[in-house]
């Protein structure tokens, strides 16, 4: 994902990601405001809890669309690797904390930790791969 010029699929991915993240931020702030200040209750409260996650589903769809549209198989493989790294980190961490919670009653992580961990490891894996596969001067 880090090489220039970007492919058509990569440009689409960046555009969709930007739009989705913007919508996500609006939804999160909107839902938070509604819960904290408008004191919504009942089914509206459930709606406020569900709505921001819709943007997350879209985010995952955007990644899926990129994998479908990217014609450069090597670049696509790098993305898949990053997803696998993120997934491994989340599954490993959740297994560890689940065992900890089961045996000691401690180890509960704050909400959204797994989500943040996934994207951080995903970004880290992409950065490492970009460094590993950087190209020098052309001959």
């Amino acid at each position, binding site marked *: 994902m880090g*090489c220039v010029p970007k492919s058509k699929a990569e440009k689409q991915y960046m555009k969709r990601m930007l739009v989705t993240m913007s919508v996500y931020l609006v939804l999160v702030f909107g839902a938070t405001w509604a819960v904290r200040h408008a004191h919504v209750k009942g089914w509206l409260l459930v709606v406020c809890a569900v709505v921001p996650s819709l943007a997350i589903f879209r985010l995952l769809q955007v990644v899926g669309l990129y994998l479908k549209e990217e014609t450069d198989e090597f670049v696509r493989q790098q993305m898949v690797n990053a997803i696998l790294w993120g997934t491994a980190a989340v599954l490993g961490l959740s297994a560890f904390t689940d065992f900890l919670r089961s045996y000691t009653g401690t180890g509960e992580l704050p909400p959204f930790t797994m989500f943040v961990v996934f994207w951080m490891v995903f970004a880290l894996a992409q950065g490492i791969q970009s460094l590993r*596969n950087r190209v020098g001067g052309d*001959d």
Partner: protein
Amino acid sequence: MTNHLKALRAELGWSQAFLAERLEVSRQSVNAIETGKYDPSLPLAFKIARLFGRKIEEIFEDAE
């Protein structure tokens, strides 16, 4: 798998960027194939072979 992509490219005086453009992949991909970091799929290997007018086995060799 090993390959002779770099040598074949040099014979024709092509740059990685030019080859990447002809193959419709990134230069990063060409570099990864040349340095043995990545083995291309069969369709891409065929595309490379067609481009150089060679058989696949003349470009790619089993390392064993």
